[in-house]
């Protein structure tokens, strides 16, 4: 994604900013889950050493440990379906909070698992975003 998060936050009029945020959030969410579902080993590139992940209550810090956690999840294949995406500017300069709800299908499982996930995207100097915070929870019925 070729976006200048910090500059965007300073210079765009509010309505355009809002629409732009929604587009950025949707593009990120599509990219994240496509990558998760089809090339999970490439997902750690979206995190850095300051990133934090909570996965079903387990806290993991830094891209390296996050990479290990993602690689060791107890399923090889999966497909995410996104139901809702909400986003807001986070108050951290250029930062975006993205809140997703959806369902996760695992091969051989009849029922989808429902989940909620939040991402806090922070701009990189190169004009992209990385995932600074990631919290994932299954939603049990």
């Amino acid at each position, binding site marked *: 994604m070729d976006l200048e998060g910090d500059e965007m936050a300073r210079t765009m009029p509010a309505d355009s900013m*809002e629409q732009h945020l929604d587009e950025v959030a949707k593009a990120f969410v599509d990219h994240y889950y496509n990558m998760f579902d089809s090339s999970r080993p490439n997902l750690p590139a979206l995190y850095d050493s300051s990133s*934090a992940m*909570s996965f079903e*209550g387990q*806290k993991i810090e830094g891209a390296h440990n996050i990479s290990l956690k993602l690689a060791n999840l107890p399923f090889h294949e999966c497909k995410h379906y996104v139901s*809702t995406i*909400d986003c*807001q*500017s*986070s*108050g*951290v300069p250029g*930062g975006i*909070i993205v*809140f997703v*709800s959806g369902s996760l299908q695992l091969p051989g499982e009849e029922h989808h698992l*429902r989940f*909620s996930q*939040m991402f*806090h995207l*922070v701009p990189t100097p190169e004009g992209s975003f990385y995932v*600074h*915070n990631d*919290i994932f*929870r299954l*939603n049990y*019925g």
Partner: protein
Amino acid sequence: MDPDIVAKAFVEHYYNTFDASRANLVTLYQETSMMTFEGQKHQGPASIVAKLTGLPFQQCKHAISTVDCQPSGPAGGMIVFVSGMLQLAGEEHHLRFSQLFHLIPTPQGSFFVQNDIFRLNYG
């Protein structure tokens, strides 16, 4: 102070206030605060609290299942992610929900809610 303790204290305070007297939530928000409630966006304490006090139920009770928290960056902010259930008076079934708060420190040593996103979780 342990961030998990701060997060838990905030969550209890928020939902106790919500369930007892929703209008008192106004002190937790500032002019820059944003709330998205089931996809509908509001900004600032007046607009946010008007939405909450205008919800189509008089009484409710939140029951919290999980609280996750993480620091949001160098400025001392905290992201708090809650899942739980909401019982409305007269309704037999609870509604399941997820809610995200981004808390920012105030000069007085407290926190205000900069970001608030609420979604019901349909089964």
